[in-house]
């Protein structure tokens, strides 16, 4: 589920919460893409610190946003707390493409680097 969007200068932060599966991923994809386009910001941060569960639908969601953002010349970074999601992010190849940060503020700094 989408909790909120945060305006962080040249980066848009999408704060997600709860469970990301096939059902929730399609709705998230649509809302994030619309907001990212309207914001006219180059960078996107997905804050996953309040995400309690994620399966391969979440991997598809992240890699899809990575493709969109990088093709528009921006950077994508993730905020991930603890080890819960790390295993699936590594297996899905996300950690090879995207920087993982402990909170959204550091993820924004990473985008601006």
């Amino acid at each position, binding site marked *: 589920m989408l909790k909120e969007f945060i305006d962080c200068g040249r980066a848009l932060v999408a704060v997600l919460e709860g*469970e990301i*599966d*096939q*059902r929730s*991923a399609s709705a998230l*994809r649509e809302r994030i893409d619309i907001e990212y386009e309207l914001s006219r910001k180059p960078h996107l941060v997905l804050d996953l610190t309040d995400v309690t*569960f*994620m*399966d*391969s*639908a979440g*991997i*598809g*969601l992240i*890699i*899809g946003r990575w493709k969109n953002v990088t093709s528009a010349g921006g950077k994508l970074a993730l905020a991930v707390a603890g080890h*819960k999601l790390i*295993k*699936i992010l590594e*297996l*899905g*190849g996300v950690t090879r493409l995207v920087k993982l940060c402990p909170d959204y503020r550091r993820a924004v700094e990473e985008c601006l680097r």
Partner: protein
Amino acid sequence: MNNYLKTQFPPLDINESLARGMAAFFILPLDPSVEDAEDVKTAVSEAVTNAIIHGYRDRSGAVELELNLEGRELTVTVRDSGAGIEDIERARTPMFTTRPEEERSGMGFTIMESFMDSLEVESAPGCGTAVTMKKRL
């Protein structure tokens, strides 16, 4: 401890969370580690999503979830009577997806394989699919 649970539900996406929730509650008396519980939930979610999305697509039918516990060995079977898989080996290849336009990662079987101790897939076109996974908790 030996126990089993056999259940059926329609191929609706709201039932993905129901299925993984049932699996999590089923193994709870064994007091599994947080990681093992997450692994089981994720693997069940992948198998049930496959049955709904690829097995039935938008057609009606029933997804069967069977959980069996013998001591600390969990066996999960997810069965559908849907489309079936033409080439199982190809379907199990990491990043392979028949529907790239929907941003599917093609990691479903890879996740089931990695998060559980074993994975068996039985399927034939038009005859449905049965996925059996085992994990020692």
